[in-house]
């Protein structure tokens, strides 16, 4: 197998929203640093923004403050947020928005040249090409080298635990990459594919979140000893039925209310946080009043034509469905359903436990975007801000470091491990990575609160989930790969199994129901004031250690105790 070495001052793992913004920040502010950006696919369309995005959901409009935004996010998450992270994120939202406009993003303006907002924190854009604009800006950056179609597997660490790079494998060819750097930014995104999806057969990847975001950054961090937070605040998206297209465009755009099969508006019975809007649909269905819809019937033809274009710019399936059936939103209400659960840090708050500089608990490792925890509702612009903060922090850290040197023994160990995985098995294998992934998704669905159980679970079910995930993890260790692509799939399965294992422990540790549907524990149906805490975790000697931490509230700033 071919082995390639690369060195840089700053290594960015993941070229999505946060990673690309980190790269262009380093290009603008630190042209003297050598930056290496590595992505599993091609950065032109990789990550969450592949199809585009319908709006910028985080922006501070005139008359509002970053504090307002932090308050809104805190309320939506029933208090389990980091105020220091939300404030530092919110303060940067407008600056990154202006930068994106400079890069070519079309943002709707009125005749006075002011942005037109949708509500008090959303801007209307044409986001179809947002990833192309970011990727083009990265490519223009002279101090940034882009390495594509390379899947990073694990960090490289010095004896003191500090992170000194990462290693990965080629997706297209069997190549092994050692990427050494003075500082590393993790921007790999969150985790999809843990639970059985809405359409487990021929459309198994038709999901809200990118199915190619496998939670690699979480798994790498856990294996390296980093602390994680709030995995148990799962995100479940309320989407248009079957197409899994966004509902916010209908709800906020044309003011469509949720109605049940009898045409009753029911939202007021459930509250109006993100999780409560989903819980309302689940509850109405369970009570026999489904299906549920967004009430679009009666909108004008002009509104319908605008919606068709808006959906083509982010989720073409929805426009296609309207045209194929001949029933557009003006003539038929749009049915809605919940997705399967995900672990993300951009909508909910799951991810690395970081300080306000976006430093993780491992020296030399910084995190931004969906992989970073404690800062929900950051969305695309918040991911940009975190990319910027992480870039500045990583640059400052890198300046005090020497170029690391990988010990030959570590290199040999990794090479031997990868070679062994590519060796044909002695006997014909009983299981495949795809088969074990399917089994994992079924376990999570049935025993850890998936679609099948209306997102609800009991402690006894979680114990069963843990047992089965343990079994599947052991089986995964016997898998072998025939080529680079299969090798990546094998590593992705193992990442997901580890995240499932940690997620189950988080769900067990939150002995309450703080958020309906997102973490609905039937043994503890109410909120417990004693659990106004973060549930954090770390792998210690192969075991998941749960750590409860006190909330960081307004005026308080968390600092790592290294």
């Amino acid at each position, binding site marked *: 197998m071919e082995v390639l070495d690369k060195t840089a001052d700053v290594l960015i793992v993941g070229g999505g929203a946060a990673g690309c913004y980190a790269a262009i920040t380093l290009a603008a502010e630190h042209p003297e640093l050598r930056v290496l950006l590595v992505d599993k*696919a091609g950065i032109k*369309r*990789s990550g969450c923004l592949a199809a585009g995005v319908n709006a910028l959901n985080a922006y501070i409009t005139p008359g509002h403050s970053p504090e307002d935004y932090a308050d809104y996010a805190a309320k939506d998450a029933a208090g389990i947020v980091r105020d220091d992270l939300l404030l530092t994120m919110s303060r940067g939202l407008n600056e990154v928005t202006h930068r994106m406009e400079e890069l070519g993003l079309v943002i709707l303006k009125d005749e006075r040249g002011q942005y037109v907002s949708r509500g008090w924190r959303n801007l209307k854009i044409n986001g179809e090409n947002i990833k192309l604009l970011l990727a083009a800006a990265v490519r223009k950056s002279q101090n940034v080298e882009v390495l594509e179609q390379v899947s990073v597997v694990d960090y490289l660490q010095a004896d003191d635990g500090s992170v000194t790079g990462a290693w990965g494998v080629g997706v297209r060819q069997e190549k092994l990459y050692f990427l050494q750097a003075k500082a590393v930014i993790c921007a790999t995104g969150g985790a999809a594919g843990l639970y059985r999806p809405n359409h487990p057969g021929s459309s198994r990847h038709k999901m809200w979140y990118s199915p190619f975001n496998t939670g690699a950054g979480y798994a790498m961090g856990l294996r390296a000893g980093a602390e994680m937070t709030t995995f148990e605040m799962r995100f479940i998206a309320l989407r248009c039925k079957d197409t899994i297209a966004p509902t916010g465009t209908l709800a906020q755009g044309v003011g469509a209310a949720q109605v049940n099969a009898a045409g009753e508006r029911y939202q007021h019975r459930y509250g109006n946080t993100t999780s409560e809007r989903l819980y309302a649909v689940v509850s109405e269905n369970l009570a026999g009043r489904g299906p549920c819809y967004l009430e679009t019937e009666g909108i004008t033809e002009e509104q319908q034509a605008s919606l068709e274009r808006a959906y083509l710019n982010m989720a073409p399936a929805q426009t296609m469905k309207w045209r194929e059936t001949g029933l557009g939103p003006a003539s038929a209400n749009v049915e809605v359903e919940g997705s399967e659960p995900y672990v993300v840090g951009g909508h909910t708050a799951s991810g690395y436990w970081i300080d306000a500089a976006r430093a993780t608990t491992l020296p030399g490792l910084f995190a931004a975007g969906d992989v970073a925890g404690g800062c929900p509702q950051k969305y695309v612009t918040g991911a940009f801000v975190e990319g910027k903060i992480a870039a500045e922090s990583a640059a400052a850290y890198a300046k005090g470091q020497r170029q690391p040197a990988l010990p030959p023994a570590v290199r040999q160990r990794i090479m031997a491990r990868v070679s062994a995985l590519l060796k044909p098995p002695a006997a014909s294998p009983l299981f495949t990575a795809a088969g074990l992934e399917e089994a994992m998704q079924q376990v999570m669905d049935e025993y850890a609160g998936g679609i099948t159980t209306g997102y609800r679970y009991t402690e006894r079910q979680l114990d069963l989930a843990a047992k089965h995930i343990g079994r599947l993890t052991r089986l995964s260790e016997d898998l072998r790969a025939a080529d680079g692509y299969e090798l990546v799939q094998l590593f992705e399965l193992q990442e997901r199994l580890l995240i499932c294992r940690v997620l189950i422990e988080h769900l067990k540790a939150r002995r309450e129901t703080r958020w309906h549907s997102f973490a609905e524990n039937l043994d503890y149906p109410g909120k417990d004031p004693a659990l106004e805490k973060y549930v954090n975790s770390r792998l210690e000697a192969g075991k998941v250690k749960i750590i409860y931490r006190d909330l960081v509230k307004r005026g308080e700033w968390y600092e790592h105790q290294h």
Partner: protein
Amino acid sequence: MSISIEPEKCIGCGLCTEVCPGNLLQVKAGKAAIRDVRDCWGCTACVKECPRDAIFYYLSADLGGAGGRLYAHDTAVSLTWQLRLPDGSEQEIIVAKNKANAY
């Protein structure tokens, strides 16, 4: 949810393989091919990228699909989406790139 490649139109240029966020597309024997249609997210990056309009997008039967084919033609100023329905009819939606969504 998936895409389909029309081999008679494909010139094997490989542009689609560079933009698939899941690395699902390969050029095999001079033609683009998808590893497994079940693994497609439906982002339509390849549909927009193809210079020969040789890739279309369709709704699988389990998503309520009815056999329509959606093509996209990308220019500097607009994205033209063309829907071909099984009855032979065609519909076109042009989305201007300099225009923001109304919603």
